[in-house]
């Protein structure tokens, strides 16, 4: 394994953060203004992804046009809220806090469960509903925070954190996202802590997934960007079980990366033979 990571040559996951920042800021400005918006709403968890989404939105649109929303549940790690405050202070964006505990507890009073996944998904979807409601109040678009690693592995809640109007981070692997975050000068506690979806206290993404982002990103890069086969990845030094596991996750979660499929009946079906660009006439 270490052989794959330590193979010679330049790091294929290295990015030029200045150039990436410039492209993403332009993306945010153009794709918002052409559909008639210039304001953003971002859910701020205290993690690096949403911190970077807020920072980019502030850089692109101006901090006065960005609303960061903290949506803690009573069992969320209190440090998350404190870290989110650091981001608000560092970026100068406006902030609101909406405690989602009442609606979550009310729902699970009716359908009690200890299933952490059900509870976590419900919270993610509740946060989405709050962001979309506030986006109407603000006349803003919801900016997404899903990165390429999560999207490929399907490590996100469909119609929860995966729902947004536009996503500046979805083509950056987690380790690339950290390069951009360091370039952005995000507060040190955010850069230093272990990645967590914070669906329950003490949750760790890497424990959940069973491998580290550093390894997953290198493997995904070979599979997806370099289009290498299972055998070629094994030859590079990745354990065969890991290659199989990651490939299967990417395959199994394809549905999360697509709009819901429509049963084809007519000669022209939306998204199949009816293929207009999103920026139609813009």
């Amino acid at each position, binding site marked *: 394994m270490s052989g794959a990571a330590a193979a010679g040559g*330049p790091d*294929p996951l*290295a*990015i*030029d953060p200045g*150039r*990436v920042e*410039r*492209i993403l800021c*332009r*993306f945010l400005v*153009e*794709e918002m203004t052409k559909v008639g918006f210039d304001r953003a709403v971002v859910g701020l968890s205290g993690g690096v992804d949403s911190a970077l989404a807020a920072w980019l939105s502030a850089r692109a649109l101006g901090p006065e046009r960005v609303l960061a929303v903290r949506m803690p549940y009573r069992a969320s790690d209190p440090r998350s809220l404190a870290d989110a405050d650091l981001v608000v202070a560092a970026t100068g964006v406006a902030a609101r806090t909406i405690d989602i505990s009442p609606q979550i507890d009310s729902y699970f009073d009716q359908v009690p469960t200890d299933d952490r996944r059900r509870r976590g998904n419900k919270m993610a979807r509740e946060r989405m509903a709050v962001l979309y409601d506030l986006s109407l109040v603000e006349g803003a678009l919801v900016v997404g925070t899903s990165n390429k690693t999560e999207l490929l592995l399907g490590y996100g809640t469909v119609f929860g954190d995966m729902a947004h109007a*536009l996503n500046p981070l979805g083509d950056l692997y987690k380790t690339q996202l950290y390069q951009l975050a360091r370039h952005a000068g995000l507060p040190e506690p955010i850069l230093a802590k272990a990645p967590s979806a914070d669906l329950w206290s003490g949750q760790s993404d890497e424990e959940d997934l069973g491998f580290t982002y550093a390894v997953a990103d290198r493997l995904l890069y070979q599979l997806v960007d370099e289009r290498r086969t299972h055998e070629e990845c094994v030859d590079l030094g990745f354990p065969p079980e890991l290659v199989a596991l990651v490939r299967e996750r990417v395959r199994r979660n394809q549905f999360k990366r697509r709009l819901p499929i429509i049963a084809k009946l007519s000669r022209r079906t939306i998204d199949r033979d*009816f*293929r*207009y*660009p*999103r*920026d*139609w*006439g*813009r």
Partner: protein
Amino acid sequence: MTAGSLALTCLQTAPRLGDVGASAADLADAIAEARRAGADLVVTPELSCSGYFLRDLVPEVAVAEDGPELLGLARAAGDQWALVGAVVESPDHLFHNAAVLVGRGRARVVHRKVYLPTYGLFDERRYLAAGDRFEVVDLAGRDGETWRLGLCICEDLWHPSAPWLLSLQRMDLLVCPAASPGRGMEPGDGGLGSAASVQAMTRTYAELLTCFLVYCNRVGVEDGVSFWGGSRVLGPDGALLAGPLADDRGQLTAALERGHLRRARIAYPLLRDERPGVVRATLRRLRGGAGPPG
């Protein structure tokens, strides 16, 4: 012998996707302004009248060679010339990614893109018909001198036979209108991956074919894809005459001097020494054996 120059303006624009009226109106203003500033020839990006990722919009944005949109641009060019990009519908309803020369009251398709990419993020062959030839076009400069233009639309430039065939027809200026999406964000002096390739290709072609070259790329964002700009003008020795522009809207001007072309072809008589007969004989042999199709 060395008299004659061509005042070139290269417009780096951001068309509005699927809105020919608005895109052509923007172009008309910019072309008229460049003409007033003294341009003999104004070059614009690939599909500058319609935007690039059109998909099912192709038939909706298509214009006729003698239609009002292109004739409007011809009026904007007045007694000078402009090259614009449009989806042009043929009389038998084929849709081509075309370069159209407008000016002096006329519009004429001077190139239909031959190589329509379908790999990676590209999908052109699904929606567009391919051109079948590379031919130079004569352009009358303001001093009565003729300039021979060769057109390679974006992907055409990635096939070395295309500029080479134009060179055999005594091309003076290779014009490459492009809609090149930025991709590849690794650090390094070359910039974006696609930008590094274009830098290498344009320099190589200008120098080896001893011709002027203008690379006119677009900017803006369509469906999440950013176009990186980088428009530039090169001399027949491969040196930059103007640009490269960054990734904002902008324009370049350059005075192309015929004397520059003459000096380059004296120093490097590559065109004189070209031997198309060797290529012809090789192609003939390949056709008889296991050569490539087409």
